[in-house]
């Protein structure tokens, strides 16, 4: 099993994700600098959180045009698994590997806290270890996490069950009050139609160690690593 973590200037969750991946795969992922024009053989590619290129212009817009991205697009087309977390999710929408985009949080403030998520699709390659509609606690830390797409796209991802996670409260209620950032339909994470690409704003890698508090991210990593095998 080969895993690559892409490192952009301004990535700051690359080492956290590497620690989580190693914990569950027992193998160090390869750290790949964004200026590389070739990618080592990878079953899974992770775009980590952070502030690539200082979030200038639009979050993820510069990173989406990095040299390594054309390799990632090729790998995505040939079926490699791709995960984008936080800034990684923003990069995936900027490259059109996932539909829609992430805009400024509705209330304009940076949100950094543990939130409840509902697992909307527990059959995907990334979520099959969770039970259906399981409520989990995962931290978020973002300023531009407000998922936006036109109604046609939203209808399509709803109809095809491509929403991996939705923001909710501890009782699983999904509504405007439990929507932290204004995302359409409380969307926190989505999957592409082919089922090999996932983008999410919350940070599962920050919920894999008891000493740091939360552990609900464990099933996320076990799910995808099992899918690869």
């Amino acid at each position, binding site marked *: 099993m080969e895993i690559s973590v892409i490192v952009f200037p301004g990535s700051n969750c690359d080492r956290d994700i590497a620690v989580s991946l190693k914990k569950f795969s027992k193998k160090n992922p390869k750290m790949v600098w964004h200026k590389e024009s070739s990618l080592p053989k990878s079953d899974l590619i992770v775009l980590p959180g952070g502030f690539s290129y200082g979030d200038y212009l639009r979050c993820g817009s510069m990173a989406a*045009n990095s040299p390594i991205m054309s390799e990632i697009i090729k790998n995505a087309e040939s079926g490699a698994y791709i995960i984008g977390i936080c800034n990684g999710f923003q990069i995936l929408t900027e490259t059109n590997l996932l539909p829609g*985009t992430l805009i400024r949080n509705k209330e304009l403030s940076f949100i950094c806290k543990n939130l409840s998520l509902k697992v909307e699709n527990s059959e995907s390659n990334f979520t099959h270890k969770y039970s259906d509609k399981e409520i989990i606690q995962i931290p978020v830390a973002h300023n531009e996490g*407000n998922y936006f*797409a036109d109604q046609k796209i939203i209808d399509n991802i709803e109809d095809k069950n491509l929403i991996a996670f939705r923001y909710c409260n501890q009782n699983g209620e999904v509504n405007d009050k439990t929507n932290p950032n204004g995302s359409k339909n409380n969307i926190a994470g989505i999957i592409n139609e082919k089922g090999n690409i996932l983008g999410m704003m919350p940070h599962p890698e920050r919920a894999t160690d008891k000493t740091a508090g939360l552990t609900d991210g464990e099933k996320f990593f076990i799910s995808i690593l099992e899918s690869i095998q």
Partner: protein
Amino acid sequence: MKALVKIMPKKGVLDPQGKAIEKSLNQIGFPQINKVIQGKLIEIEIESSNEVNAKKIIEDASKKLLANLVIEDYEITILKGE
């Protein structure tokens, strides 16, 4: 040759920054201001023998990087005599 690219949120896209500016203006004594939309203005210097070609290049750059067409519209103006 110089050009300006004006980038504005598409109609119907939530613009929390514009809304915040609007509220602030209302609070500091401009109650008559009732709609603020925030966009971006980018000034570009480009080497090109003619305006048509310059505009075409900037159009490509706008689609590829400067604007996100999911949420933004762009408008290119070539600055005469600069």
